[in-house]
């Protein structure tokens, strides 16, 4: 029992954080808002150079061969940076799905992802829109709940759905399923889709942690500088307590997300429960953080030019990505109230069978 990351993992986190701090400034995020796609192939290539898209790609395909425990700290960093590139859809969801599908499809696409030469988006029956479909080369789509199809983006009908967050690019996608596009069906397809959902939710939760942390940092910085009544507004108890409340939520969400990463990586039978718990608490921290840090900023936080709203909108978007709260609450309910999951002290780290 050791609930710590190892030194390599922590070092990689620091490296990625430093890299993103340098590359993904708020100015970069805003520049991308003004582009047609909101995404940058050049940036994607750069991210590939530090290994992000291919982190879960097996080494034989040119990736880092890592798992979700390795990845979760880095996903938090992408959230902290406000990175809009398709890390969740491609790196966190599509890669493991391609790996599981295997065969020629994996052989063709995984190396391209690792080198930053391909974007793959994933559709799921429980998720209304497909994220990043508009810049994808390949789409992994469900046909009902029992079939997974691999469809070239050029063969699909992609309708962008403009949303509140300029970084959030979602689309309705339709396609003509054929035998040729079908890559999994029945139990196998259901298993792939279930895993994809959990990975998407986990990655979104991890990004929400980072976004929340960043908003706290912005608010602390602003309220420490901004003076009213002759002193920094951050010295007023009302402002302090708003931010302290966010910090409590954040710090008790983080281990839940990290445990969920472990459950995904280790294929725990409680994976779905753990992921839904993580998605709920992390996104709750993010949304609450948005509200409180805005209030601490006052009018300046309400402007387009202040950077706060970059992360406010990310927090709202992540709350909506890969299952909104009622869906995840329903999964927790199922696990806890109907399946007879182990409860009470001593059960946190044991499996149902134990």
């Amino acid at each position, binding site marked *: 029992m050791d609930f710590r990351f190892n030194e390599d993992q922590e070092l990689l986190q620091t490296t990625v954080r430093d890299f993103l701090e340098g590359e993904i400034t708020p100015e970069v995020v805003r520049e991308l808002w003004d582009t047609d796609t909101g995404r940058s192939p050049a940036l994607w290539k750069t991210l590939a150079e530090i290994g992000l898209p291919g982190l879960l790609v097996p080494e034989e395909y040119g990736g880092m061969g890592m798992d979700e425990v390795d990845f979760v700290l880095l996903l938090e960093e992408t959230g902290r940076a406000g990175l809009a590139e398709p890390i969740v859809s491609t790196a966190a969801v599509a890669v493991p799905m391609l790996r599981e599908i295997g065969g020629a499809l994996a052989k063709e696409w995984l190396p391209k992802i690792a080198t930053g030469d391909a974007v793959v988006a994933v559709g799921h029956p429980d998720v*209304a*829109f497909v994220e990043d479909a508009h810049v994808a080369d390949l789409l992994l789509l469900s046909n009902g709940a029992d079939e997974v199809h691999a469809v070239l983006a050029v063969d699909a009908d992609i*309708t962008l*759905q*403009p*949303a*509140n*967050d300029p970084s*959030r690019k979602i689309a*309705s996608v339709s396609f003509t399923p054929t035998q040729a596009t079908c890559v999994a069906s029945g139990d196998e397809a259901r298993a792939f889709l279930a895993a994809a959902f959990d990975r998407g939710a986990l990655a979104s939760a991890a990004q929400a942690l980072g976004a929340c942390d960043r908003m706290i940092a912005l608010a602390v910085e602003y309220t420490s500088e901004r*003076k*009213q*009544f*002759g002193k920094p*507004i951050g010295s*007023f108890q*009302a*402002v302090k307590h708003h931010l302290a409340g966010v910090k409590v939520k954040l710090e008790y969400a983080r281990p839940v997300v990290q445990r969920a990463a472990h459950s995904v990586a280790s294929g725990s039978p409680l994976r779905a429960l753990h992921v839904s718990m993580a998605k709920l608490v992390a996104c709750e921290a993010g949304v609450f953080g948005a*509200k409180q840090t*805005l*209030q601490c900023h*006052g*009018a300046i*936080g*309400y*402007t*387009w*030019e202040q950077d706060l*709203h970059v992360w406010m909108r990310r927090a*709202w*978007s992540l709350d*909506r990505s890969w299952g*909104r709260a*009622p869906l995840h609450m329903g999964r927790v309910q199922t696990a806890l109230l109907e399946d007879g999951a182990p409860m009470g002290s001593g059960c946190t780290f044991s499996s149902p069978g134990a």
Partner: protein
Amino acid sequence: MDLTFTPEQEKFRAQAREWLAAHVPAEPLKSFDTAEGAKQHREWEHVLNGGGWAMVPWPVEYGGRGANLLEWLIFEEEYYRAGAPKRINQNGIFLLGPTIMEYGTPEQKARFLPKMAASEEVWAQGWSEPNAGSDMANIQTTAIRGTDGDGEHFMVNGQKTWASRGAFGDWLFGMFRTDPDSERHKGLTFILLPLDLPGVTVRPIEQLDGLPGFAEVFLDNVRVPAEYQLGEEGQGWQVAMSTAGFERGLMLRSPARFQDTARRLVELYRENADDVSETVRDDVLRCWIGAEAYTLETFRTVSRLLAGGKIGAESSLNKIFWSELDLKMHELALEILGDRGDLLPGAPAAEGVGNWLDGYLFALSGPIYAGTNEIQRNIISERILGMPR
């Protein structure tokens, strides 16, 4: 306690309803924080004024209808019920107008009020400065009195910010430091300032919705004629406080606004009831109750005012209540809309989303503007509850 309307009040309501049914634009106007929308809204104000409904609670002599506060509440109920446009000149009508009536000279009243009533002149607020937000007494923009060939004037230098309607407005009102050696609440004077004077630079500020709802106004040796001083020199704080009381209070947040939102929220819930949980339902009902509570409290207050009472620090209770209610209602609406909740109205899948998203972004500013809710809680605890400073 009599909770029925008199026949005269019912008649007034019927008149308002009839006129509004005949005149409210069928298509919603564009936001008045766009150039096109501002034009549309000025036109609408012109129509309103033509019907005598622009300045309902103003005295007839200034272009108003001479209605009392109860009639005004009734008018507001009908106005929202009719889905009529927002009021582009609310800074003028509800904030500055009553202040001019109280403090203005006869010449000022004649000069400003009719054009305000017609929205020929749209007013921007100039309360805040970069270092005077919650701490409004920290105003640093100076207005130094002097005389030149054209007469007495103020030479204004400094910067105002969060000037709502600054982007498409004509005039700005606010406090300026006329005694440069003064501190805090003293030495301030209330001045009206045309935004087209030489030395004025308006930089629109985009809000969360991307529209320039407010502006920074840079003032560089702006020569303002002394006749635009409102009230006594050095008495700006007193003049402003009467305005601020109005702002936080009744005029700008009529119950009708929140009842209208609550009604639309309940309707939205009904349409989507199968897809949302009981938690959401209970919260929707609580909001509806909240809007009713706000209405009842307003009628209670107005009853008191009509009988000679005054509004004091209670307006701080009011500010907190409506701003939290409004935000909660919009949060719930987005929750009910589910996956459609963050789609822009133009999105192909955005059917039925209404303007809830825009409303939400606007509602987020509620706990901040017109004095943050933290400041209001200070006021409640110190001035109403009598807690130590």
